[in-house]
């Protein structure tokens, strides 16, 4: 019964996404595209936070690595041979640094998008989890990392474009980015990438690995005393989260055409976590819906009342944590709980037992 419901929800969502170009304006379709790119990051966070119990307040770092690497490639692709990005010349550099030029080759850039965030996430996890640092201490480390990353990007203006970041892209693989047909392909690529990420998560959740992640989340030391080394499992989960974040960032850059330190720092990293909490942190479909809801909400509120968004997201987070600890994905079970509470307060225990029996039968 439950399986059937979740499968039909999956199919309905996929159908809605595939048909979106038919019923959405070009503007809203481009919004949807970039939010779907964000949903890939949310799936990674779902695995990291919801399944493994690791709260990361620094997902923006891995997202930013993927985004900046692709942006570097786009920047180079927009230059005539022998030229340098304008901000480098203003900052007095006389030649392109080597770690920039390697991303001129599209294959290297794509590989970099995948590998650099993964290795960064795995390295951090390896250092930290082997020392048995976890919980709120880990969350603080990741938040500090997000702050440091954004600060570094601003301060190294000659190499990163500083506060303004990287923009003015023209082509990818020889195709013009502003071209409507490119934007359409980009939307499809994003939908395919998200679907692949979703199926990957579903597969992971059925493997022994997925079950051991849950075991570690619920009882890390118990799992250790069954002969498992939690650090290894958490490192792999965190690396997958990093890879997803990197892919998400690269796609996002293509959708919006700009990347800057303000998009990768502490506040965006927290917004990523809020979106996942709203959706329900251990439900794959829930975090996708939560990401869409929060981001469309952000777009709507900040265009109507630009000052209000920060309050709005704070309020949303408080409401979800207090009223809906399992997020949107928890609503189906919540209905039963509320109904039971109503009946109890109405003083009809017999009826309650009866209904309970019926629901159990179903």
């Amino acid at each position, binding site marked *: 019964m439950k399986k059937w419901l979740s499968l039909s929800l999956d199919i309905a969502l996929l159908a809605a996404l595939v048909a979106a170009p038919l019923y959405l304006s070009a503007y809203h379709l481009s919004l949807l595209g970039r939010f779907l790119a964000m949903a890939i990051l949310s799936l990674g966070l779902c695995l990291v936070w919801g399944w493994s119990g690791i709260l990361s307040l620094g997902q923006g770092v891995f997202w930013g690595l993927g985004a900046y690497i692709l942006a570097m490639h786009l920047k180079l692709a927009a230059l005539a041979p022998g030229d340098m990005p304008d901000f480098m010349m203003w900052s007095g550099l006389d030649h392109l640094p080597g770690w920039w030029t390697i991303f001129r080759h599209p294959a290297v850039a794509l590989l970099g998008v995948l590998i650099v965030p993964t290795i960064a996430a795995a390295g951090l996890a390896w250092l930290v989890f082997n020392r048995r640092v976890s919980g709120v201490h880990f969350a603080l480390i990741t938040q500090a990392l997000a702050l440091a990353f954004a600060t570094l990007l601003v301060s190294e203006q000659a190499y990163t474009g500083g506060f303004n970041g990287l923009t003015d892209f023209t082509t990818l693989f020889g195709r013009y980015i502003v071209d409507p047909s490119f934007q359409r392909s980009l939307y499809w690529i994003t939908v395919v990438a998200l679907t692949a990420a979703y199926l990957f998560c579903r597969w992971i959740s059925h493997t022994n690995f997925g079950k051991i992640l849950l075991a570690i989340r619920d009882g890390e030391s118990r*799992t250790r005393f*069954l002969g498992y080394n939690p650090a290894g499992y958490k490192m792999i989960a965190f690396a997958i989260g990093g890879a997803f974040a990197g892919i998400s960032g690269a796609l996002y850059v293509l959708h919006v055409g700009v990347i800057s330190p303000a998009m990768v720092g502490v506040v965006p990293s927290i917004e990523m976590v809020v979106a996942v909490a709203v959706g329900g942190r251990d439900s794959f479909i829930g975090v996708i819906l939560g990401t869409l809801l929060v981001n469309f909400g952000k777009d709507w509120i900040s265009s109507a009342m630009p000052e209000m968004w920060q309050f709005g997201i704070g309020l949303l987070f408080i409401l979800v944590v207090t009223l809906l600890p399992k997020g949107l994905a928890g609503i189906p079970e919540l209905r039963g709980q509320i109904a039971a509470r109503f009946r109890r307060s109405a003083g009809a225990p017999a009826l309650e037992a009866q209904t309970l029996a019926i629901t159990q039968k179903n």
Partner: protein
Amino acid sequence: MQSPLLSVENVTVSFDGFNALDGMSLHLMPTSIRVLIGPNGAGKSTLLDTIIGNVRPASGRVVFKGEDITDLNEYKIVRRGICRKFQAPGTLENLSVEDNLNLAARPRRESWRSFGVGIASQVRARVERVLERTGLKEKRKSLAGQLSHGQKQWLEIGMVVSSDADLLLLDEPAAGMSLDESAQTAELIRSLSSDHSFLVIDHDMTFVEQLDAPVSVMHMGRMLKEGSLNEIQRDPQVISVYLGREKEVAVA
């Protein structure tokens, strides 16, 4: 002469200057049961903690199957064949009963070898036997968090058993169980002792008697006396340690 499965040699464990274990020694033969008793604070749980690597001794060593395991990581000690049931319930609440047992029974516990979906047939068979023995067969698909207290105890004993470790450490396995259940637990332990060794902590003398095994009495972090339950109960030193608690020892 057969060499011991486990040797705890002159181990001292110190917490802020207080010696929880103070030159403790213990030897355990393969396929045997040993019961560990002693007043609260005698160091029984600390001894299990030391064997399993949860606590590092200041001096002395722990030898298992001829190998010094004193400084190994907990999970590596477990992989060498020691599994422990803790005093506090430690089932994995959001996994089914079956999955709890499967995880405990899997021989391949390295993270990079965990991406399979299936369960090895010998693991499946072992889990099936444990489900049968613990009476949890009907509950195999229930989440562990939904079990009653007694069932959780059984599940946890089942997890330790299905790990197929050579040495099983049980910290108060019969706590909170009815007379019937604890008799069944004793029966289970005895029947498994043809393949495994057990080191069991318990206060319940009825249960200890049912185990029908040699008893070691600890006091102030040291071995006070070893012998049959009968000898122990008559020993004046043991009685004086339990002063005011003779009843506890003499219940049987």
